[in-house]
């Protein structure tokens, strides 16, 4: 679709702590179908980064291939982006993060990109606990190649051509939990209230933060039989709890009723408030999350919200003991041992 972009900026457009307006976090015009769930996710990313006052150029956005993977062009135009190859965003992000641990990494992928061709890389980036926000824009189909079923298409879900899916789906949130991901959430592209704070919390999390975002494909998978359509998800969504996110620097002003709110303090000092959690659900317990996902699935419901968080994660750099400075910033003086050392190496080889 196309629409006219305006250069007009209201003199009073709100700025964040760093003096940036929301516009500074926007990207090129989207070329996705009008109403595509993926565009709402881009918009949520823009809100989250703006509200978090992240310097746009300190974010790197990476993706694989698919409609979903195209979206990094449509947000954060002042950030470097990398649209790589199908299913391989995780390895590119791993290398990028190893090179410079000081940037915020947002990886965007699709259900085809992550649950099929890229399942291996998805699994390994999760188990390495790479410090990144990993978003799967999950429409239960291959959008860009025109609507084939994907590995997350629900059992018995009927696609636009009337064909029902006969294979068990892969639940990426469930898988991430089992693989040791330290932050796992599920959300819905149509639920900005929930999605934006989840993204903010995920970016504050120092480790692998995974959000499976159900994101209807209006062109190929938004029909009555589909279980990833707007209507289906709106009707069958239940949240673990509603959430507020308070970044580290911000003072906590809102008062919550004691007993109804759980407070989760992340490693960097920011706080997530969880209200009205579902009965017996514990956000610090993997098994509780896995059980809740399964219970809801059996009832034909989609469980959304924050599913699990480890507030003191050990990320890849901790494990391999990398220096605190970005490796990319090191120069000859700390990288090259020089000729004197080489002489003694030569001597040891005679």
């Amino acid at each position, binding site marked *: 679709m196309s629409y006219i972009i305006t250069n007009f900026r209201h003199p009073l457009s709100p700025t964040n702590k760093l003096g940036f307006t929301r516009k500074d976090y926007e990207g*090129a015009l989207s070329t996705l179908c009008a109403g595509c769930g993926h565009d709402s996710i881009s918009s949520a990313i823009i809100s989250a980064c703006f509200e978090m006052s992240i*310097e*746009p*150029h*300190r974010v*790197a956005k990476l993706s694989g291939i698919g409609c979903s993977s195209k979206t*990094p*062009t449509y947000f954060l*135009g*002042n*950030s*470097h*982006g*990398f*649209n*790589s*190859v199908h299913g*391989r965003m*995780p*390895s*590119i*992000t*791993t*290398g*990028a993060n*190893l*090179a*410079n641990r*000081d*940037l915020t990494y947002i990886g965007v992928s699709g259900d085809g990109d992550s649950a099929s061709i890229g399942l*291996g*890389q998805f699994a*390994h980036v999760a188990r*390495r606990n790479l410090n990144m926000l990993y978003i799967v824009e999950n429409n239960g189909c291959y959008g860009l190649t025109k609507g084939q079923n994907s590995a997350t298409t629900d059992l018995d879900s009927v696609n636009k051509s009337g064909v029902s899916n006969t294979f068990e789906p892969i639940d990426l949130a469930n898988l991430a939990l089992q693989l040791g991901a330290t932050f796992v959430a599920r959300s819905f592209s149509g639920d900005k209230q929930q999605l934006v704070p989840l993204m903010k919390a995920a970016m504050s999390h120092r480790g692998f933060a995974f959000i499976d975002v159900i994101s209807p494909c209006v062109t190929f998978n938004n029909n009555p039989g589909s279980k990833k359509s707007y209507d289906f998800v709106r009707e069958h969504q239940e949240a673990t709890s509603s959430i507020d996110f308070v970044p580290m620097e911000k003072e906590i002003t809102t008062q919550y009723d004691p007993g109804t709110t759980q407070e989760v303090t992340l490693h960097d000092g920011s706080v997530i408030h969880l209200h009205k959690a579902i009965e017996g659900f514990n956000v610090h317990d993997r098994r509780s999350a896995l059980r809740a996902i399964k219970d809801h699935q059996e009832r034909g419901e989609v469980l959304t919200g924050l599913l699990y968080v480890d507030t003191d994660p050990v990320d*890849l*750099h901790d494990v*391999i*003991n*990398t*220096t*605190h400075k*970005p*490796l*990319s*910033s*090191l*120069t*000859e003086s*700390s*990288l*090259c*041992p*020089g*000729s004197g*050392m*080489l002489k003694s*190496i*030569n001597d040891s*080889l*005679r």
Partner: protein
Amino acid sequence: MSQVTLSQVSTRKLRSDDISGVNELVVRFANTNGTGSASANNMFAKAVFRMGVPISPKNIFPSNIQGLPTWYEVRVSEKGHLGRREGVDVLVAMNPQSMAKDVEMVLPGGYLLYDNTKPLDLRLIREDVTYIGVPLTEICLREYQDPRQRQLFKNIIYIGCLAALLDIEFSVLTDLVGDQFKGKEKLVAPNVHALELGYQYARRNFDCPLKVRVERRDLVGDSILVSGNSATGLGAVYGGATVAGWYPITPSTSVIEAFEKYARRLRIDPGTGKNNFAIAQAEDELAAIGMVIGACWNGARSFTATSGPGVSLMSEFLGLAYFAEVPVVLVDVQRAGPSTGMPTRTQQSDITSAAYASHGDTKQILLFPSTPRECFDMTAQAFDLAERLQTPVIIMSDLDLGMNDHMSAPFEWDDERTYDRGKVFDAEQLEQLARDGKRFGRYLDVDGDGICYRTYPGTHPNKGAFFTRGTSRDKYAIYTEDGDEYVANMERLQRKFNSAKKLLPQPLLKTSSEVAPIQESERYGVIYFGTSDAATEEAMEQLAADGMVMDGLRLRAFPFSREVETFISDHNRVFVVEQNRDAQLRSLLVNELEIDPKKLLRVLNYDGSPITAATICSKIRQHCAQQGSAGLRQA
């Protein structure tokens, strides 16, 4: 089965037709893998080297961890011929499993050292070989209690025997033991004792030394003895690599192991004790190269090492890096393919798949090291080249170079040298560009060499950000499927590839015309690269001695520079020596330089063992016979 006892196999006096000579021999050790023979055999090679005599050791091993035959072959050559040579002068036959075949390899008049604790199968006895029986097992049973020690010291004992038989200075061996067990002094005495046991036994029982023997010389200068993979790993440290992603595969694994070993020594931040490097063992080669691309895109120097199967898996990503113009350093330690082929045998058979790695119109830069020194230099240089050219650079090593120790010029480093990080705008340059009223374009060919300016992520709050992608884009990195933009971009990439020619290591000319002048009418050339160098140069000497004089050109990089074209056009016929079936380098020459295929004659060896001068000579002679060439008559 008829067998003979020790008394029957004579430790007879040497015969007139026994192989004799000083410092020109091949010693082959036949062992079983997993028995700890490797370090003992290495000690032998190094002892000869320390006596100032050139050597070339080669491991010949199966793709197996324990129990199968392995061989270690040392060519000793005072003339400095360090290619492999067929035929064994002295066989140390420690493996009954392979003995029958091993015995066949011994040259008439050669020697065979064996364990005569048990009688030898009569069928293994050749009239024209001298059998030297040493009761190794018996000595070990007597001297050691622990079964593992009995096994390990058996190896050291036969080295002691060889020392006496070949006249190796005993003090050189004891020094080596001292060096090897520095910090574990407890082990020195028992090892020296084992050497003594063998040495004394041989002296008591045989006429030592044999007619073929080693004698101290001063022919190795300041050379070092090191494997290509160690040199590559060290080159990556010196070249400033900070991120390595990798997946284990023989014969490349030891590149990363060496990088890690040296980095743990040389790259620890003194203040914090933390690592100024990161190594990630990936889930496969796709992820390994993906990590490299991500790291290089983000401003680090990064590399991976693999072999043929890994290069195949990396193919899609290599196309991305080529097209998106991301620097990558990839080390391909080639082995015998296709498929799993012979994973522990050497070949140069990834030339085509590396040169044109990936779909679409791709061409990759290749470097061909021949020696450990070149592995070191080219690896360090590869990072400069990759960043200067913003494209993958593939270092084409092979199993022979990578996993065997080679005598090599020592490593050198100029402390004045700085890394060439290529065309990268920093924040200040982006500001200046804006002040000059210019717009940053990631794919603008400002300098006309096809190489554009890039920026690293995180550089500037509102300038210089761009979107990297494998899809076509305009000069400002904006997505486009416009045919003209696409073609312009592809042509620029071609221009960039041509710009590379001047920057790459140039070919080296080697002529034997000082031996005899070349007839103007019959100018013959030999093109070779990588580990075919020593054998080719030895073959050229042999042919020249027979009156067949020719010029040699050792290629060191692809794309080929003008010198290669000139060399081919200056010669009537050119032999192309390589270690693969399909004459892949020859195809590349024909294809890229539009050479008449008839002019390039194949000289091939691809049985998995390093090429020999004898093979090269005989193939060249065959060609000559077929061509009925006047100038290349057999002498």
